[in-house]
């Protein structure tokens, strides 16, 4: 296992997340894709930290990301619930009020 492998895995995960985020219409799935991208970055942080001996910055950032992701998930899910109560749907296509 070299750094390249980690990088490849991370890029793949990020790509899946990005594509899924764009293609899927279910907001819950899109949020999962966001989580996927965040975790791809986490993996990158930890992997790079392995080559940065005597320093734990990368791992610290991974924790920070996890914390932010948790907060984001909480806020995001709350918004999704509010939206569902308002529109009876969680399809992002149905939400085009931004146009107006």
């Amino acid at each position, binding site marked *: 296992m070299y750094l390249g492998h980690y990088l490849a895995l991370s890029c793949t995960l990020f790509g899946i997340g990005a594509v899924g985020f*764009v293609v899927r219409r279910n907001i819950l799935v*899109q949020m999962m894709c966001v989580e996927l991208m965040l975790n791809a970055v986490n993996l990158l942080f930890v992997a790079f930290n392995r080559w940065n001996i005597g320093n734990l910055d990368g791992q610290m950032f991974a924790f920070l990301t996890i914390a932010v992701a948790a907060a984001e998930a909480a806020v995001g899910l709350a918004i999704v619930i509010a939206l569902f109560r308002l529109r009876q749907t969680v399809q*992002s296509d149905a939400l*085009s*009020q931004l146009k107006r």
Partner: protein
Amino acid sequence: MQSVSDWLNTPGKLAELSLALVVVLPFVGALINGLGGRVMDALMQAFFSWVPGVKSMKPGESSRGAVVTIAVGAVALAFVAALFSFFTIWRAQANGEPGQLSVYLYHWLSLKTPRGTASIDIRFTLDQLSGVMALVVTGIATLIHIYSAGYMSDEPSYARFFTYLNLFTASMLVLILGDSLPLMFVGWEGVGLCSYLLIGFWWKTPEYAAAGKKAFLYNRVGDFGVLLGMFLILAYVGALDFKSINQAASTLGQAQLAFNGHVFGLSIASLIALCLFLGCAGKSAQLPLFVWLPDAMAGPTPVSALIHAATMVTAGIYLMCRLSPVFLVAPHAMAIIASVGALTAFIAASIALVQGQLKKILAYSTVSQLGFMVAAAGVGAFTAGFFHVFTHAFFKACLFLGAGSVMHAVGAHGDASLKELGGLRKVMPITHATFLISCLAIAGVPGLSGFFSKDEILLGAAMSSHYFTFAPWLGQATFAVLLLTAAMTAFYMFRLYFMTFSGEYRGADHGHHDEGHDHAHDDAHHGHGHGAPHESPFVMTMPLVVLAIGAALVGYLGTPHFLHLLPNYWSDWLHPVVASAFGHEAEVEGALSPLVVMTLGTLAAAVGIFFSWSFYGSGEPARTVRNLAQSLPSLRVFLEDKWRLDPLYDLLVIRPAHTLAELFALFDRIVVDGVLTRLSAALTRIAAYLLSRVQTGFVSAYLALMVLGVSWFAWWFVFPHAKVAVHNEGDKVSYSVGRGFGYLTRMDFDNNGVYDTAWVEDPNGFEHVFDDQARGDLVVRVTSLGPYHRVREFRLGDKLKSAVIDAKVLGEGWQRDKSDNVLPVVKLKKNQVVLIPNAAVVGQYDAKAPAQEMILRRGDSLRIGRAKLEVGVAVHSVLQVKNVFGYVKTKNIEIHLYRDPSLDKPNAPADDEVPGLAEQPRSDEPKDAPGPLALNSNLKVGR
């Protein structure tokens, strides 16, 4: 307080303070009334509403007392201060000191000119000339302010009127006392503005507003001349204060106007005099700009008296007297000025003969009298002209105020028709007496002021033949025209007098007014409830009496020398500051003797008055007027139409301007509003439509776009970019390569396929010196040596075998012979450059012999025409940039190598002459063998 009294006890400080106060006081009055007039009125009204038994007041009524106190007080105090200052310089002159008082307030601006820095200060100077003028202005302004208090008593905008009047007085004083042309110009524009505001005082009547506009625009034409004159003075004198200008007068008189070495026979002084005279013609209502003044009678009568008779309109004559030395050295300009003055006097008098309105006649009379003054200045009798300014101020102000008093009495507004007046002698004894005195004075009846001043002018015209040496008849012609005009003056003034004061009152019914004033100011006089005509109140008759006394007596200040009646105080007083075309007490040989001139002048007045009496004073006026009218109907109509000047200007100036404006408007409508506006609007709309398609409102669409954008940025940052700037001096080339994130760079300087550097992270500091073996196409560079920097570069190779060098880069006079215009050509022949000079001069600039074809090599340079020709070589370097992913970008850099100029420096001449050209061949530099055989001997050969 101690320091203040110390300061005041310093000699001269009190006089300086009083001089500053002369200008500042009216301005302060205008500020208080202008900014606080309404507040004051509101406060007073509120106060009076508390007082029981006071009936409700109209706007402007309650604060009237306060406004008048401030306005009249300010001007009266300014008069006192002016008197004090005047006596200070009078005493100084009596003690043999220079009669001048000057107060410096602050430095305004510095103008850099080729003749040094002109410092323009806010400085007021009271000398003999400005002292008299300041006294006249403040004195008459005080009287007219007092008169206005009565005359305008029914006016709602009372405070506004007095604000303008005070502001006018302040501006006029700046004009008079300003020490330099720019400061005078401030006052000049200020009085113009106040004139405009006061003519259009009853702006709700459209004709009055139009009259104000007309006055302003005609004055603008003149102001343009003053500005031009000022610029000329700045250019040729390098200073703008009157003292420096007058000191430089003789230099200006000798300097000739020249353009590109061509002399026009016009001295700079003449040009300056004509430019300034254009301004004087505007302000002092001379041909061709006088038509605004009669229309200016739309303003209230006190305004006509103060601004359009006594003070502002004389500003032009004042300016000419101020700069009399400059005008005096420009006799050709003076001839024009004298002619314009005499013609204006005559034309205006002829129009005044037939006018039917009280103030119109007085207005044309003013124009005519201003013509007298200008003619006096034009024949070089500045003192006489200014004397007439002085006496005219008294009798014309008195006449206008008398006319105002008459109009007040009969309830006329704006102007009164002579047909509805008459017989007022009995009901208005004071007005009648003062009016008669002023009429006698303006007609030039011996013993009254107008007689003396008009006589001086006539005398000046009669003596001017020796001043106009190029046209001696001009003086006599001016004299004759002015004499005729004097008779006409007497005629129309007494026509006015007889039709107003003698006979029976013809005003039919007292509520009736001759012109339609049914607007804002209507209630001003309608509400008055006029019964029969009556004498005006004391505040109005008092100024009349004072002015009439002045009109009768001020002439004795300037009695002619030959009468030995009194010393001529006037010319003695003005002698230090006003130049003259004549000696101090000269009698000119061959001219009419002063006594004859005086007799002729008196006769003219007598004839005019006699005819007037026989037409209007003796019998039943209506019939005689009709008879006169019937005898010469077409002339009468022509004169009533004011010589048809307004239609003429309409045809000459206004119509063409309108046509031009309409053309531009058409262009504006079709091109700007039509094509350009619609086109840009359509483009914007299309772009907006297309872009709005992007705004779907779907979050996922926005996300997709965002991902695309971020990807593009990522690609841009990672993709290698090769940016390189090359600097070369001769064969030594330094490269600066742009750096990037994670880039590695290497270079192959000489393009031989082998990279000369390893991959490096920091690409700065790449340098390479090319040797003689560097290969590439030959390039020819031609650089202009002339005033323009032009460069042509030809790269001779497979694509371009030969090139013509154009004449622009070769510069003026590149040919040996003007008739031969065949341009030089460079050709590529067997890897060498061949220059075919054709008609061009090559090498030595004065070479006359045709040059042969020459073979040039890399590094050669020579002079061709007015340009430098160099031969160099185009070499290539290759730059490679690699990013972290191993992606490599290759860039080809072309560099033109010419001879390194620094190599020539040690032996080069100090000026940057082309190396090796037009100079001796260098012996210390060995020529490389074999040199091109066809080159000139002084041409350096390539290394």
